[in-house]
Each structure stands twice: as C-alpha cells, then as structure tokens.
C-alpha cells in the first residue's frame, strides 16, 4: 500500500529546508522524500493513492513532551480517548504523558495499565513517562530499571521538585547507570511555595502571592551542579525566564548532557494576560514578564532551548471557577499548540523548519524515537496544515474533555488539514 502526498511545502527540520515536493508513504513509513519533479512524476505512476496537498505545509507530526492525560484518577477531566482525538486534531502524532496522575505512575504495573489503555483508546502514539520517586514524594526512587523495561521513556516528578538534594543525587546517579532520561522542573520549591503569579508590579497591584523569577534559576543551578556530580541525562521541562538562560548555556558549553524545553503558553502570553484574575491563565510556573517571554523565544530560535510543548493540563470548570489563589493551575494545549506556535512564525521570530525542530525533531531525538523527521525509513507520522488560515478560537469546539484554554475568543492563524500516524490518516477536515 503506497500513498503519495504531492504538491506540498515540505517542512524539513533536519535539513532546515522548506521546498515544494512530495512524500511517499510505504507500509506505514516514509518511503521517499522528493523535490525533483521527474522523480515525483515517476512516483505518481507507482502510487496506489495520491493526495494533492494544494501547496500546503507537510511536516513531521508533533512530539508533545509532557502531556497530562488524567487517567488514572480524573478521567472526567481527560481520558486517553479524548486526549487522542485532541492530539490528532492538533497535529500531534506522539504524546509523551506525564506521571502526575492519581495515583502517580510509579510502578511497572500502573505503567502497564497506561500503555494498555492508551493503545485501546488513542489514535496517536502514546509513550509514558514514569515518576522519578515513589508517589512523586521525593523520598525514594522508583524502580527505574523495571519501568524502563515496561516502556517508560523518561522519569519525572513533574512539578513536585525533589526537595531533598541527596535523594535527587542518588536517583540521578542510578538513572545514569541505566541511561535513563530525567526530566526536572527547575524551581526553588520553598521560594515558590504558594505563589500564584510572578513577583513585580502586576502581582502587587493584584495583591496575589508571588514568586521571583530567580527561583527558576536557583532550581536550575542546583540541578546543573548535580549533573556535574552524576553525569546523568537531564531535560529541564520548562525554562521561562531570561535569568535561567546563561546557566543553561554554560552547562551546555561544559559538556553536560542537558536539554531544555519551553511551553507554548509562556512563549505566547505574559503576566499581564491574567488581567482581572482570569484563572485560565494560571499556570505553573506562572506567566512571566514580556522581557522574559521574548528572551525565551529568542533562545528557542537560537536552539539553546531544544523543545516546545503544550504542557497540556486539563482542569474542569469547578477547579478553575474559584478565587485566583485557590484555582487550579494549567491549561489545555494539544489542539492549540500549532496555531499558537505559528504566532511566533508570523511574528518573524522563527521559520517553519526551526519551529518543527523544536516541536518534532528535537523531542524525538532526545527520547530516542525514530519519528519527528521527514526522512526515508522514518515512521509516516505527518501533519498537513495551512499556516495562514485564520479562525477565532472557540473553546467549546475543543475535543478535550476540559476546555480550559487561555486562547478562547482569540484570533489565531493556522489550521491542521490532516494528521497521519504510521501512514494512517487519523484526522482530516471534510
């Protein structure tokens, strides 16, 4: 079975190119990537099915590192079924799930449950992360070896920072011996305890408990020092402040095995968007100043920050319709990741191949996955999208069970036209 997607703008993050061409799908994998017209003409005679992409963009499907699916525990907020549909509609072909569920994913048995549920219910690839410490409590490490065997792609306690540095040191040392990737949340936990916004004029005007952006750098500095001690493989889940960037750069120059991510909300919104206590803008870490936002956007464009993800965190109305301090943190993002990220392209901060380097290639590489590329032999996980199509975001159109998006009512540009996972179309506009 062969399918030819032709007349497409091929967004290739590996080569950094954006050329018109075609992709041949053979047996669920990419059989050929062609820009030569004679080659394409020859392929047309062979292909069983042909799809005219009408000059729209064809890119590797998004690999979203750090998605919360609320199974087990809070299935009313998001299930693998609803998250999978949302992912497909958003051009996300691989979800890397977070273990911050109820209970936490900290044993091979619970991980096995996730894998089974995900395969039954979700039309996209689902790969789970497991907790680094039991119950994400920061006392004892999990069975990292068994969890790796059971399919964990990385280990993280998510927003529960391991406070005890000795525990983290041992966990990192053990993880290094197995080559496991540890995903940290750089934050000094006592400084950020109870904080709802970033400190500064806005926080003081609104009278909300705040944390200095310095808490992120302090957390990152500690983790970097531990990497020097242990040599572990480490990924910082979200870098959101300008002050953390020089530390990251130095660690990279010193040859430590460190990568870093950013969340789409911190790259497209700032602290002032909270306005009159709008709880859909309450995130963890909180939204930052405009200067921080721009610095992190620049770091993403330069490659200092490797990955861009949605940090998809479903919350129901009940947990958001509360006074700001009491409201839950987090926003859904699977379906809005691409159109929001395209704002950065439309604003001239980065080009499409650079964007897909952060959305697909880099997360896949960091996790050792074969996807995320437009290359022969890679899985045919693809997204076809129109980067310019305008629309007004209506949160009630979201496929997620929770509709807590900060982009409700906003004008956006960029629509997914079709999503392919392993060569199968899992989403397409009629």
């Amino acid at each position: 079975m062969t399918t030819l997607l032709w007349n497409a703008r091929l967004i290739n993050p590996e080569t950094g190119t954006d050329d018109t061409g075609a992709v041949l799908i053979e047996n669920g994998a990419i059989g050929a990537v062609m820009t030569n017209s004679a080659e394409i003409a020859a392929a047309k005679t062979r292909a069983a099915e042909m799809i005219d992409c009408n000059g729209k963009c064809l890119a590797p499907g998004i690999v979203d590192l750090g998605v919360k699916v609320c199974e087990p525990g809070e299935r009313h907020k998001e299930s693998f079924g609803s998250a999978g549909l949302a992912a497909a509609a958003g051009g996300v072909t691989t979800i890397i799930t977070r273990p911050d569920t109820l209970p936490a994913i900290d044993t091979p048995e619970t991980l096995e449950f996730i894998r089974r549920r995900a395969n039954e219910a979700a039309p996209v690839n689902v790969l789970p992360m497991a907790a680094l410490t039991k119950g994400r409590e920061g006392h004892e490490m999990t069975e990292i070896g068994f969890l790796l065997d059971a399919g964990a792609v990385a280990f993280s306690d998510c927003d529960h920072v391991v406070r005890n540095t000795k525990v983290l040191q041992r966990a990192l040392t053990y993880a290094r011996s197995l080559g496991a990737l540890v995903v940290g949340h750089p934050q000094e936990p006592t400084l950020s305890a109870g904080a709802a916004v970033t400190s500064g004029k806005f926080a003081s005007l609104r009278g909300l408990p705040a944390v200095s952006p310095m808490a992120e750098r302090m957390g990152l500095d500690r983790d970097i020092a531990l990497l020097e001690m242990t040599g572990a493989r480490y990924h910082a889940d979200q870098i959101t402040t300008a002050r953390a960037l020089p530390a990251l750069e130095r660690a990279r120059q010193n040859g430590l095995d460190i990568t870093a991510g950013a969340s789409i909300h911190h790259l497209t919104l700032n602290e002032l968007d909270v306005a009159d206590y709008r709880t859909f803008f309450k995130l963890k870490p909180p939204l930052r100043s405009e200067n921080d936002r721009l610095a992190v956007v620049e770091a993403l464009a330069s490659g200092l920050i490797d990955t861009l993800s949605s940090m998809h965190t479903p919350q129901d109305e009940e947990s958001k319709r509360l006074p700001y301090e009491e409201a839950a943190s987090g926003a859904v993002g699977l379906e809005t990741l691409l159109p929001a990220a395209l704002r950065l392209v439309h604003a001239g901060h980065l080009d499409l191949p650079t964007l897909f380097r952060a959305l697909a290639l880099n997360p896949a590489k960091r996790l050792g996955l074969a996807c995320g590329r437009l290359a022969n032999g890679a899985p045919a996980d693809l997204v076809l999208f129109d980067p310019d199509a305008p629309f007004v975001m209506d949160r009630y159109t979201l496929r997620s069970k929770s509709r807590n998006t900060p982009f409700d009512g906003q004008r956006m540009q960029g629509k997914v036209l079709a999503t392919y996972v392993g060569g199968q179309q899992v989403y397409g506009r009629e």
Partner: protein
Amino acid sequence: MRFSHKHLLGIEPLAPDEITMILDLAERYVDLNRGRAKHGDALAGLTQINMFFENSTRTQASFELAGMRLGADVMNMSMQASSIKKGETLIDTALTLNAMHPDLLVVRHPHSGAVDLLSQKVNCAVLNAGDGKHEHPTQALLDALTIRRAKGRLHRLSIAICGDIAHSRVARSNILLLGKMENRVKLIGPPTLMPSGIAEFGVEVYEDMAEGLRDVDVVMMLRLQKERMDGGFIPSEREYYHRYGLDAEKLAHAKPDAIVMHPGPMNRGVEIDGTIADDINRSVIQEQVEMGVAVRMAAMDILARNLRSLPKEVMA
C-alpha cells in the same frame, strides 16, 4: 457627571472626577449624620446584604449603619459559620444569594480577586469591603475625605504611608487614590514588608522613618497584620516599634500641622504610641470612623442610582 461603574470593586478603575463625586456626596451625609434625625430614604425599599468571609467588626458595622440610615433593609451574613464550611463554592453561594434579589451586596473575602469573581455572577451592585491583599476602596475613600476636610484639599499634599505595605489592601487602595489625585506619596517600612515592583507605582520608598516623614502633611499608619504573617518578616515587635513605631520624636520630622491617621484596629505600642493616637490636635482617627459611615452611604447611594437606570439583565 456620571458614575460609570456598576460595582465598587476598587479604586483602580475610578476616574478622579468619580472619586470627587463620591466625596462631595459624602460631605452631605456627614451633615445628615451629625443632625438629630439621621435618616434619609435614598435606599428605601432596597435590600442590602453584608457578606463577610473574613472577621470584621468596624467595617461591617459601618456598612450596616450606612445602609440603615438610608432606609435599606440590611441583612448580615457571617460566612465563616455558614455553607462555605460545608464545601459550597463561592460562585454557588453567590448564585444562591442572587436568587433572593438583593440590590446591594457588600463583600469581604480573604482572597484577592474573590469579590471581582462574585460580582460577575450576580445582578446587583457589589461593594468590595476588602479582598485579600488587593483593595479596600471605601477605606481609601474615607481616608481621602478625612484628609480633604483636615487640609482643605486633596491634591499636592505630601503623604506618608508607613508600615506593613506588603500585606495591606488599605495601602494599595490609598496609593492608587492619592496618586490619581496628584499627591506625593511616600512609603515607609522595612524592605521585607514592601511588595515587589513597588517603585513602579509612582511612589517614593523609604526604609527610614525620619527621612521618609520629613515635611509630610499626612502620616498614615498601617496595622501590623500579625494574623497574615507567614512568620519571619520582622525580628520582633519591639524592634519594629523602635524603628517604625510612630512616636513624638519621629513625628517631629513631619510638618508641624501634620495629621496622623490609622485605619484601625490599632496595636498601641507596636506601630503607634498611645499618646499620639489620642492627641486631639494631631490624630484624626476618630474622624476617620465618622467619615467611614458617610462615604459608605454615598457609595451605596450612587450605585443604587445606577441600579435604577440599568436594565436587569440575567447573567449565568
């Protein structure tokens, strides 16, 4: 002149003219309150509900009296003891009350922004009687009226606000109001009790009382909010009193005719010396309480006038 707001949630959205409008009307109510028959009918037939999710004696009494003097039916709900304890959310409480058709809702809540949230879910006019560390607009208005009566004007004055600025909604509302009316505002306190980004508020910040109080017209003391302290903001009460407590020696740096204010309740011997608080030539603390009733009468009167001209739309 129109008052263009449905609610009184804070000083921040008010225009200087609107502040003056409330103060001018409050002057008339001061006269009414000083007369023998202290009764008007501006709120006759209207229902006022006071919802206090946080303990209050003086503010609640002041609002209650203000409503009664203008002829409203006033009901007090102590939310500490009620359904909130049974797990009801703020919005459900608001919807329940809304179904009883109140006209004025006076709300105090321990969380910043909670009164704002509640106001979105009800049809009546909402008055913020203090929300977390955000705003306490009627306190700033009564302070403004007190200053205006004592100094004959409410602009181009040098005004010091001293003490626990970080945890004070009174300070925030006063900084906003006094700034809007074009006064020079000086904040004095230990740096651990200053909110972040305070220098961007168009104020001067001092850590030393003598320096900060130099030639000011008005000294506003704040209560040291012991109940809000996480612990460890200041070394001890006595060191605080030594460095920041208002006594005759420190007050000597202010103008000779400077007035002393305090929103109450006072901690004598912590932030203010008892003799200064009782000095009738300097202290206007009792006058502040009197202005409180008048300002709240004026604020509710103005909102009630708006209420009559507004269609009663139904909100979810």
